[in-house]
């Protein structure tokens, strides 16, 4: 315990010295988020400094082994680092699907060679990854995917189409689910494979969304040649890797309930609507909605914390992240509905400096995908019903 307290004190002091003041404010727009990659551009000098200092400590991936560019911290230390970062509203130094999704899967299923090749580059933000899971006709029924990989000597030849590939147009590499056996049952013929997005035959096309933005793409593979050694885990057993990775994705998405650096809803609403003589929000119904939301959000933060503690105590259930993903994303949608109510007419302007180019409205629209991406709320409830509650049928 004494060691942990010392670690906390040292971490706090280090963050105090090394986190630039500009990196302790909520991100204002997409360009404020640092994603790394081959064609990386820093939006500001403080962003560069913050990233490089954290990278040098191994704290872009604090809980990964040091040999792969991580910080080698144990779970308690990682929790303390996160708490101390949250306490000063420090931004993430590096946002990365490599960190959140691929990394944990490679640590568990990758060969030594794959780990040595990819993990340090993820930690150092050198390669930006995207995820090739969804397909146009698969949707929630992910395992019905049809992108095919046919053996040709030492290579696979990949043909097919992916959809909802987040930021594929900026990605350097893709981790991708492909069908390697069409005769097997649908979960048993899938492989998990990695390849360079610069390979011949790969093309991407952004999809315009209701928010007016396009974080997502359609991605096309036309005779893309990939070495067979790029398969992670066992050929035709890619579903295991995919499921493991999804758990991490769901934990990540459920953490949208844990917002750091954003102002409390009550305060945002008070600034917009005003308060009565007693300092109470001048809209009792909205005040009630916000209070009810704050209760649930605080409880959700406790549950996210407990999920980590349960896992550490060996009492976690692999499907637990589905429950939290469901709740966290529904909660985030609720938050944004309240933000729209609180902002009223002012946040309805789509293109104006007054509304910061429709920032609130665009975010509100973006959150509607929370309960679809990474498995819909209905799929999450189905998983909880079958895997945790052991209810009968299908």
């Amino acid at each position, binding site marked *: 315990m004494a060691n942990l307290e010392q670690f906390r004190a040292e971490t706090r002091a280090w963050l105090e010295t090394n986190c630039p003041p500009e990196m302790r404010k909520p991100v204002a727009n997409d360009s404020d988020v640092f994603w790394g990659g081959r064609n990386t551009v820093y939006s500001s000098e403080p962003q560069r400094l913050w990233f490089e200092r954290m990278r040098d400590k191994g704290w872009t991936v604090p809980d990964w082994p040091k040999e792969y560019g991580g910080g080698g911290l144990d779970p308690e230390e990682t929790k303390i680092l996160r708490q101390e970062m949250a306490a000063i509203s420090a931004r993430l130094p590096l946002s990365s699907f490599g960190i959140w999704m691929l990394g944990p899967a490679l640590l568990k299923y990758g060969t030594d060679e794959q780990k040595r090749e990819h993990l340090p580059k993820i930690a150092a933000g050198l390669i930006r990854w995207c995820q090739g899971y969804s397909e146009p006709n698969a949707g929630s029924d992910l395992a019905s995917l049809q992108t095919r990989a046919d053996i040709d000597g030492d290579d696979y030849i990949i043909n097919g189409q992916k959809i909802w590939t987040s930021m594929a147009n900026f990605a350097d590499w893709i981790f991708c689910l492909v069908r390697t056996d069409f005769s097997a049952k649908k979960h048993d013929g899938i492989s998990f494979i990695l390849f360079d997005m610069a390979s011949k035959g790969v093309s991407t096309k952004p999809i315009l969304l209701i928010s007016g933005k396009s974080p997502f793409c359609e991605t096309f593979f036309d005779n893309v040649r990939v070495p067979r050694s790029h398969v992670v885990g066992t050929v035709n057993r890619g579903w295991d890797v995919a499921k493991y990775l999804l758990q991490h994705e769901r934990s990540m998405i459920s953490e949208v309930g844990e917002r750091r650096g954003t102002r409390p809803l*009550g305060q945002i609403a008070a600034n917009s609507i005003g308060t009565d003589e007693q300092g109470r929000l001048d809209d009792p119904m909205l005040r009630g909605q916000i209070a009810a939301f704050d209760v649930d959000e605080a409880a959700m933060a406790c549950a996210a914390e407990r999920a980590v503690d349960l896992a550490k105590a060996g009492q976690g259930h692999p499907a637990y992240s589905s429950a939290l993903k469901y709740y966290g994303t529904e909660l985030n949608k609720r938050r944004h509905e309240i933000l729209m109510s609180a902002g009223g007419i002012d946040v309805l302007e789509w293109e104006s400096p007054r509304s910061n180019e429709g920032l609130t409205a665009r975010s509100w629209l973006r959150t509607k995908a929370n309960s679809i991406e990474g498995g819909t709320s209905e799929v999450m409830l189905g998983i909880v019903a079958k895997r945790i509650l052991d*209810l009968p049928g299908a």
Partner: protein
Amino acid sequence: MALVLNEEQSMLRDSARGLISDKAPVAHLRKLRDTNDAIGFSRELWATFAEMGFAGLLVPEEFGGSGLGCVEAGVVMEEIGRTLMPSPFLSTSVLAATALTRGGSEAQKSEYLAKLAKGELIASLAVDEGAKHRPIKTAMQAVRSGNGFRLNGAKAFVVDGHVSDLVIVAARTAGKPGEHDGLTLFLVDPKTKGVEIERTIMVDAHNAARIVFNDVEVTADSVLGEVDRGGALLGGILNVGRAAVASEMVGISEEAFGRTVAYLKERKQFGKLIGEFQALQHRAAHLYTDIEITKAAVMKALQMLDTDFDNTEAAVAVAKARAGSTATLAVQEAVQMHGGVGMTDEFDIGFFMKRARVCQELFGDTAFHAEQLARLKGY
């Protein structure tokens, strides 16, 4: 601190569960109700509870208790919630033990705490006056009179007030209803002249009382804590009580839910187990998630009461608000998914619905605590 029970706490849970499920299943409450039992709980079982160290769980060791914390009290309350065992655990072992330990003079502690730990003294907390829990609106008067005070007023919803050997009463020595300052807590012997107690048979077949105080004379020694400044002490006691009741509601929610899931796996309709229907699966999965999130919030509040007592208001408000809404949902879904049989008195599930309703009101319902949170957050 990790939000999971440690080994000692798990052992405590197992021993409480063993005793309670064995000696006081729901049938125990049903029998007390059906026989119009004179006191509404079993003195014999309470004695066993005391022997096992539960009565004095929060009493410091120097006064013969176990000197444990709110997390442990919550563990026992959760088990009580699972079978709805009626007992003076909340009134005496949680509320009175907290009140005396935190606010009592040395003389008061030595007079009461040892007896309390032995299960020989039953005590209650008298706060509410109106239809809803509003401690700040306390109107009962305590006027200085000679060396002591004269109490006038009426209290309702005094849990175990009908069997108490000691009543802890909140009254106004100054200020007006609605004002923070001016509250004082008194230790009153219910046999004192002018105290009238009416046992109120409640919807949940648990015990409460209405107490009227008519010119009740008490000495200055009966003041618990400081005169005029009882608000903070009362707030602390209530917060422990709220977290404890929230734990009971977690127990109620889990038990009602567990019975419901079991029923979904055995009941057939349209030639299928009803648990195969997606409409019911999704509602069950939602309820599971809701309970898990509430459990975490309640555990957080209990841990904070043990480690950071003075900064627990928000965490307790979150816990009690969540527990109230979760238990309400759990019992409603339980009755609905059980269908007609869930509406029958013969079937136990209705007992959970009634108790959840009482727990929801006790020490502030979901709306009260959401309001508290809004106030604490300054909007």
